[in-house]
Each structure stands twice: as C-alpha cells, then as structure tokens.
C-alpha cells in the first residue's frame, strides 16, 4: 500500500494538520518509507490470534468508582490556561452549523 499525494492531504485534514503544498512530497516519501517497513507485519501468521488491546501484561478489568461528586467547581483553574475566554466560557471563532 503506497500513499499518493491526495491521501497525504486527506490524512492531514483528518488530523487537522495544515500542510503546505511544498511539504506534501517530502512527507509522502517519508510516510511511504515507514509504511513500507511496517508492511513486513503481513508476513506474520495471526490466524486465530486475539488482538492485544491494552498495555497490561495479563488480564485486566475496568475498575469502578463510586457515584459521588468529588470534582468540579474549579472554573477558574479550568479556564486559567485558555488562549481566549469570555467570562467563564472558552471562546473560539464563530462556528456555523
């Protein structure tokens, strides 16, 4: 599987990375190099193998927490790093739905 320039642009769009036209070719080359190398995984016989989804070395189960309000009420801290805010709201350029 080899990436073409259109796919590079599509992926950059999905990832919300602005891509200058001049970067497309370089990136395409690099990505194809990496993907070509990854391609060797196809040699491995994985018939009947359960995929390993998490990082735990053994069986893992989701731990549960009690239903109690233990957080929140910290709007000041939540907004302290905001690049733009209006009152206690985060602000972004107007979105048209």
């Amino acid at each position, binding site marked *: 599987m080899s990436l073409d320039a259109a796919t590079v642009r599509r992926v950059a769009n999905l990832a919300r990375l602005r891509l200058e036209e001049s970067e497309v070719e370089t990136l395409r080359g690099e990505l194809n190099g990496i993907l070509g190398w990854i391609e060797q995984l196809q040699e491995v016989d994985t018939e009947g193998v359960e995929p390993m989804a998490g990082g735990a070395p053994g069986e893992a189960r*989701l731990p549960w927490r009690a*239903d109690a309000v233990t*957080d929140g009420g910290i709007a000041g801290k939540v907004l302290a790093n905001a690049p733009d805010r209006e009152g*206690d*709201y985060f602000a972004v350029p107007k979105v048209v739905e």
Partner: protein
Amino acid sequence: MSYTIQGDTGPWEVVVGLEVHAQVLSKAKLFSGAATAFGAEPNSQVSFVDAGFPGMLPVINEECIAQAVRTGLGLNAEIHLWSRFDRKNYFYADLPQGYQISQYAHPIVGRGSVEITLSDGSTKTIGITRLHLEQDAGKSLHDQHPTKSFIDLNRAGVALMEIVSEPDIRSPEEAGAYLAKLRQIMRYLGTCDGNMDEGSLRADVNVSVRRPGEGYRTRCEVKNVNSVKFVMQAVEAEARRQIEIWEAGGVVEQETRLFDVARGVTRSMRSKEDAHDYRYFPDPDLPPLVLEQSWVDQLKATLPELPDQRRARYIAMGLTPYDAHVLTIERETAAFFEEVARGRDAKLAANWVTGEYFAALNRLKRSVTDSPVSARHLGELLDLIADGTLSGKLAKEVFEAMLEADEPPAAIVERRGLRQVTDAGAIAAAVEAVLAAHADKVAEYRAGKEKLFGFFVGQTMKAMAGKGNPALVNEVLKAKLG
C-alpha cells in the same frame, strides 16, 4: 391499515429507525467526579478530565454501568458481560479530548424489544439493536457574540445511553409512541429523568421512504430532535421532502440534517465539510468492562415494576384497559393512584383519579408531582363515600374544598356540616312535605307520568339542602308514591 403518504405518483411507505440519546441519572459524570446537575454556571461542573487536560485519565462511574444494565433489562435485552470502550475521533470545539469515549464494537447491551401502543389500541413490537454507554459533548453557544462561539463544558463527559432501534417504525405516530415508551420505561426504572426540554433525551431520526413492498432506499439522519411532537413532525417533514425528490426524478443523498422547529422542515447541516472517518479503536486508558452474572441478577431482582407489568396488574385489579393505560403513563401518576387505591375499591379509586382529580389538575394547570390534593386525603374521601357519610354529589363538593386547602375531608365535612342524612324518619318527613306541596304533580305521576319521579327526588334533595342519602330518598319516594 398501514400508514402511507400519498405522493403525486402513488403511495409511499415511511421507514424510520431512532437513535435515542438518554442522559443517565447519576450524581457524577461517566468518567469524572464532576456533577451532572442541569443549569449550573458555565464550566462550573468541569474537571480537568472533562476538559481533556494533558495527563488526565478516565475512571468509570459504577452507577452509570448499573443504570445501563437496568435499562437493558427494561428493554428485554441481552446484557453483555464483556464490553469495551472505544474512542471515536473527531475535532470539535465542544469535544475537549478530540475523541468521544463510546462503545462502538462491543456495547454493554445487545438485542431487545419494546412494545408500543397506538391510538387505535393496537400494539406493535419495535426491535432494539443495542444500547451503549458514551460521553456527552459540551455545549457551544453561537449567539452570544458577533464573531465568537462560546464553549461550556458542563455537559462534557456526562453519561449517555445511546439506544438504537431497528428500522421497524413505519409512521410518525409509531416514532412518537416509541420515543414516549422509551421515556416511560426509563422514568419507571429511574435511569433517565426524561426531561426533554433540558436535553436529557434527544433522538437522531433516520428516515427513508419507499414504495410499498420495495427494499430500503437511501436514508437521512435528522439530528438532535428533542420532543415526541418534533420527532413526529420531523419524520413527516423529512419523508415528504424525500418523496418530492424521488417523484421529481432526483436522488436522495445520504446526509445529516437538522429539524427547523419554527418552519417545520428539515435542513442540511452546513458543517459537513468532511466525510467522517472516526478512526474507532479500543481506548487504551480503559481495560474491558467485565460484569458478573450474579451482579446483573441482583439488579434484575431489584428492578422497579415496568409500565407494561403495572398496566397488566391494574387490569387484573378490575380497571379498564384505558384507565390502566392512562394511570401508568407517568410513574408518579401510578404511584399516586396506588396510594389512593390502597385497601380500597380500585375501580372507584381509578374513576376518581382519572375523573375529578385529572380534571382538577387540568383546570389548575398543576401536575401529580405538584398535586393540590394529597393521595392520602383523596383516599380518605373515598372512605367517606364508601361508609355512606357522603353521597357522590357531596363528595364532589368536599373535593372542591380540598383543592383550596389540602385538608382531611372529614374535617371539611364536619366544619361545613355536609354529612349526608341517612335517618329514615327525617327523609320520610321531607318526602311527605314535598308530596303535600305538589299534590297536582303526585296525581299526574300516579296517572302514569313516571318521568316526574326525578322531579320529586330533586325537590326532596333541595328541601334537605342536598344532604339526603340518594338511595334512601329514592326508596322512600317509591314507597310513598306507591
């Protein structure tokens, strides 16, 4: 007779499936300890987890799991003992992590069904495909500033149950009945408050049309419809739009649309610049959700009575199917009725609750949860009827007085002297006087004008200030008139 829309070229059948998003009733959010209450100050119910801060990790709220399982049980659905959370990746201002944690490949609840009742009394079973847990997004406010949108993350991370139906719905009425039924079930279970105007229950409505007997055609999704009425309107509006396109020789394109409540039409969402590619994958922060069968069994054993079960029980108690239906629509109404009926004649209780009581609520614009009369006092009123203290007519008078101040009916009876007269001597005396005063009418009656009997009853009751026991009055009159 199945529902069709008549187009210019013939009848069209409507095919609808609903994806209902129901906010889970819980104190805290699905993966954080922030509160879920409605209407709080902006960003005041937000933890760093909800706001997607670096290094923050999700930890699941056990009550949200239990609520999803209860709902699944209420939908007669399979409970999956092994499920998993995936990430649904997309960028949006009110999606702080850049992904929504959802159960895509392995939902907690599988296939189930609900039975809906239609206005003609018929019932229909609608299949449930699945129910899964997921996070809600925040809220964007677009109308507060000329060039900016404002983001409030209070909702971000609140637990939702997404309930997906099979495309079994065939009319606006069925769509509305289905949503109302889901709401009813969840309110009975206490798993979702069903407050549609607060956004606790929203539906994405998938609509397509077809010629009767045909396979499926392209469907469109009408997003975020937030009332039973709007769901019905949206189905019809979207179906008509599609019929118009097909009949004009066009092709309906699969897309996401919004229902414009003011204009009663659906419109395309403008922000669909990308073909979505959500890149689902298992959330590596969350190991699989594993349930013990014994835990599920325990939830099942302690499940509140469902509306269908309750309705059946009411019918078994002697209520008409109609009264049973009306009394079980809202859990609170049923609870009110049960308190009134406890240890009393269920039919009499049902008549009073659905009759005088509902009429009073309507008139006063109140609801059961905000009742002007307590169930206990209404029950006591029924006791006064049963023991003969009050006639039906007097009882209504007492009830009117109870609406003004929720007092024990016995106190009102005492104070106003409304106790019914059952003393045969007193009644006989009143009857004698009436017959003496209307000798002419007595003659007419005896000559065969039997309709006059009611006149004598009325005159006697009037003479007794309405307090005569109607049965005794009738009895004595019949005897005296021979």
